[in-house]
């Protein structure tokens, strides 16, 4: 293992994030805080509670998930795509490092950034709504696993993408809608039975449900199922990465 190389990539990426602090931390926090204010404060007065949880608090896990998913994908996708775009990827390809080490460096940095972001949003939430965390270890587990999994997905997208607009495609047009429809703002049980069934085909339902369970012990599906789905995603992304490096897909000519 070339640990120094992994560390170099990690530090390089974290430094880059530090330079764009406003963009990478402040902007997502402000937009999430707006959700708290609009939904939590304004609508929370009308929808009093869901299963005994204040509505403003109920939406927090879903909103953190939304940020975690989109930011993990975007960060990792942008980082590797940028190297490809300006050609500096030559340095990675000609260094004595394995593809696995490259992935650990980039995905590690992207996941770290979105985990930090998740915490910042969580702390912000405590200022706006009555929060509680019933199972902090599970909460942390879901947070870390999801960040890693979706950073891997972002890495794949970054390698696949042929232009900057394609980097935005998955976070904007797939993840965001699926998160909104996946029970961020409501419990699946309020939907008509037919829609409940349809909703279960939305993979993000499982992530949001499990994450919310770790806060309030309320869930749309059993927490074990959520964990299983998260693991399944992780394995699928790892398989995708393995295939990319085995074939040199879009990396080497």
């Amino acid at each position, binding site marked *: 293992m*070339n640990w120094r190389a992994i*560390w*170099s990539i990690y*530090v*390089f990426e974290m430094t880059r994030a530090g330079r764009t602090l406003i963009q990478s931390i402040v902007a997502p926090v402000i937009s999430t805080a707006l959700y708290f204010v609009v939904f939590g404060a304004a609508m929370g007065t009308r929808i009093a509670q869901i299963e005994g949880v204040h509505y403003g608090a109920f939406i927090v896990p879903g909103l953190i998930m939304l940020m975690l998913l989109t930011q993990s994908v975007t960060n990792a996708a942008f980082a590797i795509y940028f190297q490809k775009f*300006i050609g500096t990827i030559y340095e990675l*390809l*000609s260094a*004595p490092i394995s593809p696995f080490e490259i992935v650990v460096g980039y995905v590690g940095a992207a996941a770290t950034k979105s985990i930090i972001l998740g915490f910042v949003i969580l702390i912000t939430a405590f200022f706006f709504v009555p929060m509680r965390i019933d199972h902090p270890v599970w909460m942390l587990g879901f947070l870390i696993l999801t960040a890693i999994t979706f950073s891997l997905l972002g890495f794949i997208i970054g390698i696949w993408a042929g232009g900057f607009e394609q980097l935005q495609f998955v976070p904007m047009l797939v993840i965001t809608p699926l998160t909104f429809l996946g029970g961020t703002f409501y419990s699946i049980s309020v939907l008509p039975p037919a829609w409940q069934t349809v909703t279960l085909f939305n993979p993000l339902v499982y992530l949001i449900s499990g994450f919310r369970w770790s806060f309030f012990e309320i869930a749309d599906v059993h927490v074990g199922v959520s964990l299983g789905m998260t693991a399944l995603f992780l394995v699928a992304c790892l398989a995708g990465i393995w295939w990319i490096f085995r074939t040199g897909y879009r990396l080497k*000519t």
Partner: protein
Amino acid sequence: MPPIISIAGLEKRYASGLQALKRVDLEIRKGEIFALLGPNGAGKTTLINIVCGIVTPSAGKVTVGGHDIQSDYRAARSLVGLVPQELLITPFETVWQTTRFSRGLFGKPGDAGYLEKVLKDVALWDRRKSKIVTLSGGMKRRVMIAKALVHEPQVLFLDEPTAGVDVELRQEMWHVVRKLRDSGVTIILTTHYIEEAELMADRVGVINRGEIVLVEEKAVLMHKLGKKQLTVQLAQPLAEIPARLASYKLGLGHGGRELVYTYDTQAEHTGIAGLLHDLAAAGVEFKDIQTTQSSLEEIFVDIIKGKR
């Protein structure tokens, strides 16, 4: 001594179907400066990129320091530094950050002293805290060299190091390259300027359309190429060359109005004085004389066309 780089039967066919390299065999000796000379599109960059791990070969075997570039890529790549043809560098890091990053990628521990030495060698020490985006083109190119050197490679590839570079910087680069060679680094540079190969290299390889056409010691090559021609324009056309001038192996051209004498500039006696004397003695009157040296470009084109 075994060659530091050995290339055997190397082929590359790009996905487009284009055959960029055709069974290339080449050995690079330890410590030499080797110039790979060839026109645009000859396959120079492809060859370098394969050795460095950026392009996957279609067939063939390459070893660096005895290590196979595919099965033993870590050991092989550790020995190699690459300065690519284009300025490929992230804009917002400082000179110091970007060179330290390169060293880290090669798994070397941070060594501020060594970084300082490399940056001083390429005259960038004063700019170490500057962001790349604020540097001139020539400085960026030197940063690229520093990045390639900072992991202490034994072999340095310079892909067209002086293309589009002004005279002053070119001199500077040559100076840096010579210093490196003196410190024992093997250098392979590609160029399409013959003068550059002539000035810098110990050996020269000529590549065209994916094939190595010729590999020669520079001194031998230059000797072969160091021919000049003297053209004598005659007052009256000649039907044939007078017998007493036979030893000069003259050519008769331009409808008998010109005599062409080919001589070696590096020979002790060029024979020009004798020729002029004998011309007068043979009663051949001439209006004018001129000498021409085939330009390096012409020579190069001749090699490629197989005339030399």
